[in-house]
């Protein structure tokens, strides 16, 4: 039975989603707004939705309470600590948590940023077989017996053979009446992607920049998850040498010293070669850097990109996070060397407010 409250609840949820969507830019630029990311859901704190009415302000207001305490003792901030009749709660101060599925969040972001769906490559030649129960047949294991169909068949038989007595409808299926569910195997295209995050952890990258990277990576993850059924993530950090790490280390390592971007490119290339055959995988490289590179290394980077990485990858995104120490040289290099190359997405983030635009630049090509 449909309950009235379900309709009201759904409408309420729609309103909440509208709010979240409306304020998405805020949530994107301030990662802390996103609560625990337990599994498939995130909980997002939003101001409580209230119907406005004429009500008292806090100035000169008061009430009656009970308990011990001296005159002048503070008993609580804000107007929501009142006694009888003063139980008005203040919005803006009052936060309510809403749970939103990651997929839905991705969809909202896609809508807000007008992101195109990613067109996976190799869709035609990577095929999984998937079983679906679509048929009924006369033989099969008892565990798959189709109860309703079996009894229908029994009634049909009884009626046809004249045994059926409407006054005393006793229906006993016999062996021949039994029906079983059966499946057909359907080929479904498989879409798998690997996302290789590369970050420069040399001395010139500060914590604020890491926070920006983490934020942007969260949203890119969310979007990619909504686009690919299998998504693997690999993390590579580098200064003058590169190594592969887990997610936590990726965000929390800080080295000192110089930068050799080519080391990371080499490692990324190796990872792809070893684990991800090009015909089965969509390969993405997300590189975050402050744009500093050791001058002599540039030539090697360009050749690695041109020869190895770009031919393999769907896209390489280079996001340059503005740093007080970095020169931003590398972005200029890439721009001049690869201008007009579809496979290379270049973007620059100055501060948190720039995250949204950067995401659009990175994901906006639908590759």
């Amino acid at each position: 039975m449909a309950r009235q409250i379900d309709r009201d609840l759904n409408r309420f949820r729609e309103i909440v989603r509208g709010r979240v969507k409306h304020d998405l830019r805020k949530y994107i630029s301030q990662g802390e707004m996103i609560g625990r990311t337990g599994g498939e859901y995130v909980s997002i704190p939003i101001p409580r939705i209230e119907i406005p009415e004429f009500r008292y302000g806090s100035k000169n207001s008061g009430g009656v309470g009970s308990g011990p305490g001296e005159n002048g003792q503070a008993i609580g901030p804000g107007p929501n600590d009142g006694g009888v009749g003063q139980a008005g709660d203040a919005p803006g101060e009052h936060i309510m948590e809403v749970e939103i599925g990651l997929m839905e969040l991705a969809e909202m972001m896609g809508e807000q940023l007008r992101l195109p769906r990613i067109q996976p490559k190799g869709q035609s030649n990577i095929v999984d077989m998937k079983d679906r129960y679509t048929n009924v047949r006369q033989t099969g294991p008892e565990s798959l017996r189709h109860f309703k169909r079996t009894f229908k068949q029994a009634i049909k038989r009884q009626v046809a053979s004249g045994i059926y007595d409407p006054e005393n409808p006793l229906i006993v299926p016999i062996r021949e009446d039994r029906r079983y569910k059966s499946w057909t195997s359907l080929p479904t295209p498989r879409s798998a992607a690997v996302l290789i995050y590369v970050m420069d952890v040399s001395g010139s990258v500060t914590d604020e920049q890491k926070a920006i990277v983490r934020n942007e990576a969260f949203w890119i993850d969310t979007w990619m998850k909504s686009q690919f059924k299998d998504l693997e993530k690999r993390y590579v950090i580098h200064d003058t040498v590169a190594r592969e790490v887990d997610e936590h280390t990726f965000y929390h390592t800080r080295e000192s010293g110089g930068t050799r971007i080519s080391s990371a490119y080499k490692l990324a290339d190796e990872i792809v070669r070893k684990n991800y055959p090009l015909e089965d995988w969509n390969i993405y490289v997300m590189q975050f850097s402050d744009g500093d590179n050791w001058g002599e290394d540039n030539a090697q980077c360009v050749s690695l990109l041109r020869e190895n990485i770009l031919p393999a990858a769907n896209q390489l995104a280079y996001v340059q996070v503005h740093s007080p120490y970095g020169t931003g040289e590398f972005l200029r290099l890439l721009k001049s060397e690869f201008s007009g190359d579809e496979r290379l997405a270049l973007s620059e983030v100055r501060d948190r407010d720039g995250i949204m635009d950067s995401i659009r630049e990175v994901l906006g090509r639908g590759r």
Partner: protein
Amino acid sequence: MPWDTHLLPPELRDLQVVIEGHARSYGLDFYPTIFEVLDYDELSEIASLGGFPVRYPHWRFGMEYDQLSKGYRYGLQKIYEMVINNDPCYAYLLRCNPLVDQKLVMAHVYGHNDFFKNNQFFAHTNRKMMDEMANHGSRVRAIIDREGETAVERFIDCCLSLENLIDIHSPYIKRRKPPERFGVDAAEQGGEASHTPGRLPSKQYMDGFINPPETLRAEAEKSRAERDRPRRFPEEPERDVLLFLLENAPLKPWQHDILAIIRDEAYYFAPQGQTKIMNEGWASYWHSTIMTRHCLDPSELIDYADHHSGTMAMTGGRLNPYKIGIELLRDIEQRWDRGQFGPEWQACDDVQERARWDKAVGLGRQKIFEVRRVHNDITFIDEFLTPEFCRRHKLFSFGFNDDAETYEIESREFPKIKERLLFSLTNFGQPIIRVRDANYANRGELYLEHIAANEVGLRFDFAQRTLENLHRIWMRPVHIETIDDETPTLLSYDGTDHSVLPLAAPRRARLVRSGRREG
């Protein structure tokens, strides 16, 4: 789910008979009671609909439900009982409660039920509200089918925003003449020709004495002045703002219908807000009496004591209406049992003698039955709150400290406590707002005034958003006069801009134009 699973299981049905018998034996007088057992989910649904299974659709109920069911899932709160002022009276029990709780709730429900039936402030409420609410539901649904969901929801939002602008005393007072049925005032129609004001019937030869010409002239003068007096609209400030809008705002028929529904329901719920302390106190008094004297099995004693005291607890300095209610009623009962009232008692100022005072008049029970019939929370506190009571229950008054931005304990003096308590109960702690002028500036603008007793002004951000909603109904600029830190201030909204204008400020007035203030 078939409805009959909500029927009482046999053991509870037997209990109901027993408890109802006890309640009746004490002289409680109630409507027939129908108990239904519900799962928590169902109870949350009904609670979020204000106790009614069918109402008009609105997202606010969904929000309420979301909070209730989350609160339960996270173990933060639990609704024990719900009871509806209706004939027959519906009450809901939570299926998973242990037997002792069910007993307690049943006894409690009979207290509420008796209160609904007998308290005079409930006299005007519709006792078939269950049906009425369902009718409201189908009316609104029909309107939605015709007008579309968005338009109706938007309009309901506006109405709910003004829901508290009713005149809670109007069911008991005739504030104005009912409008003339045929549209013309008899006096105006008659004119001077047929009737000279002030003239008394007399024989012709006595006329000069009975109706002296100068008196007649004065009377005529007065009536002319009365007629020529500049007309105001409304004639007297109108407290029932919703009624005023119903009668005068440019509403489409369906909007009129919805506003009328919201107003009806607001009046139905009003007495429950007006008698919160008494109602809960009365019900608690009776569950306590019935449980401790009759129904409690010794094995249940600890659980009962735990739950009873949990309900009565005053935590975090908050005033608990259950506790204040039951204690005041017991206090009254004791005072009238011992004869602690009347001039003799008033005159006695010997503390020891007052403490010993017992005339054994035994009028307590009778007195509390009288109290439950004639009082509401305000008169109840005004009449029966005593300094001794405040001391015994460690009551204090608190106020807002602007500098520290917190509430602070203000005083433990009786007059101050009583004043604060009464203020928080006046108009259920809602600001009192009237329509002063519906043709403000001679431009059909609506001018509301907030009667700011106690120097407490309105919350500006809320007020401005409410004005926006009011504007959607009145369709012309709207204003509300309130105070901002002791300065009379006019908040206005003209459909696009808000303005805040201090009125008669000590120095020069200043006009502040601003967009919507963020809350």
